[in-house]
């Protein structure tokens, strides 16, 4: 047999006036609260938006879906190194010496041929570290936020695939 002692806060017995004061306090404070709430019934703008019909425009530096403009990529691997979850997979080979010389938009010569540029968006933590180290600013976060998919495989974006490169006209701002 074991005895368990529990603490209990003992309220003192109320006097007659204290009881009425309590009732008065309860009615008064509830009335104040109701007054505040009733002000919200009329004369308030609606703050919620009806999502599928009304779509919110995110701020311009919002970190949403990643996009790599493969034509401006110099395969420097800096994004893959900076990534804390290692979700960027890059493969590149040395460009043949007799191949025509190409440059990125900002004039950096491209010395490597990009063979694979894949980001596993399902692993991505959207921290933005990869975009800040990109020297040619080809890897950017866009404000596109509707990209749920049914399979995990569909979350792997191969930025050399034509259908994903076609996003460029849709989600990348000038």
């Amino acid at each position, binding site marked *: *047999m*074991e*005895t*368990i*002692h*529990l*603490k*209990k*806060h*003992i*309220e003192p017995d109320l006097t007659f006036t204290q009881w009425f004061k*309590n009732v008065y*306090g*309860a009615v*008064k*404070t*509830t009335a*104040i*609260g109701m007054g*505040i*709430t009733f002000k919200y019934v009329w004369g308030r703008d609606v*703050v919620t938006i009806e999502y599928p019909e009304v779509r919110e425009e*995110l*701020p311009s*530096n*919002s*970190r949403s879906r990643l996009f790599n403009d493969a034509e401006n990529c110099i395969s420097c691997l800096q994004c893959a190194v*900076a*990534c*804390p979850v290692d979700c960027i997979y890059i493969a590149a080979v040395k460009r043949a010496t007799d191949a025509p010389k190409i440059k990125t938009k900002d004039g950096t010569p491209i010395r490597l041929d990009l063979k694979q540029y894949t980001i596993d968006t399902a692993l991505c*933590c*959207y*921290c*933005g*570290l990869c975009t*800040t180290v990109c020297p040619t600013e080809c890897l950017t*976060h866009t404000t596109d936020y509707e990209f749920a998919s049914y399979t995990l495989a569909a979350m792997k974006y191969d930025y050399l695939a034509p259908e994903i490169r076609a996003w460029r006209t849709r989600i990348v701002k000038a």
Partner: protein
Amino acid sequence: MSSHTNTNENKIILGDQEVLKSDLLTLNMGPQHPATHGVLRVEIKTDSEIVVDAIPHLGYLHRCFEKHAENVDYRGVIPFVDRMDYLAAMSMEWGYALAVEKMLGTEVPKRAEYIRILVAELQRIASHLVFFGTYGIDLGAFTVFLYCFEDREEILRLFEELSGARMLYNYIWIGGVWNDITDDQLARVAKFVDRFEGELHKYNNLVGENKIFIGRTANVGIITREQALDYGATGPVLRGSGVKNDLRKDRTYGMYDKFEFDIPVGSGEKGTTGDCWDRYNVRIREMFESVKIIRQVLAGIEEGPVMGKVPKIIKVPAGEIYMRTECPRGELGYHLISDGGKTPYRLKVKSSCFTHVSLLPAIAPGQMVADLVASIGSIDIVLGEVDR
């Protein structure tokens, strides 16, 4: 008390009255219980409505943060740091950045210091608003939740414009902050702060002064001064128990020594010192103090760069440091050990929520189950920080 084999033979004395002999019922509160604010499982032994014992079970949100941190470079740790206390990610980042900066000896530009204090105090308001709103829900008042989230939205919108994300910012970097704040945004903060102060008075009248709310929280979940100190409680929980302790004043960091603000302390205004109402009230008053600090930031902010000189590949000299900062939920400590490499050798985090969870078995016995919900809500834990 937790090792009873035959519960039938216990004699339970509540206060000075003996309770009718009955079986103890073991209940699992959580892990998917809305009142536990995340995935906390509290195993409670009850005698009808009275809680005899409460044992918190942790680990549902454990993500091996400390081991992860040993394998990513110093900049890459910051996104993981965000995910500890996801309601106050700015404060989490700041503590880590300070620890690394101290070891590197980096000078942080004045403007960056101001922006850091600004975002940290806005974050404190946003975090306390979540506490305020969800605490209302815990006690059956839904209205204030919507009001609080409307105001919090404005803060999150500003953070989204600054950093690009709404909750996991990765904004405070080693050596400064990521993006500069524009004058337009500062004007918006000033406008928000002016409006918010009035709104907060209104919300407090709606909830904090309400007789029913006081009835539910006063004299409930009392953490005495001695208990709070014994268990190592920090932040609003410690201050609610009447101990004047704030790292922003006591062991000042950043530029907090140049700012004037008070430290609100619980005094048992509606009941006993250290009850749920005191902890609630301390947080409300802290929001007013944060407003004060933000006003001083807006008056004193200087022009200049926002990023100090940091090497491209951060290699922290060998050594160790323990950096403590005052987060919305209490003291956050980073014990960073470096062996001179590119990654931390060890990063131990002292989280306030973990110590606060350990207070539960001490305050739960003798309470009603509904009061236990009020107690868990009032210590305001975030399970991401408890488990890390």
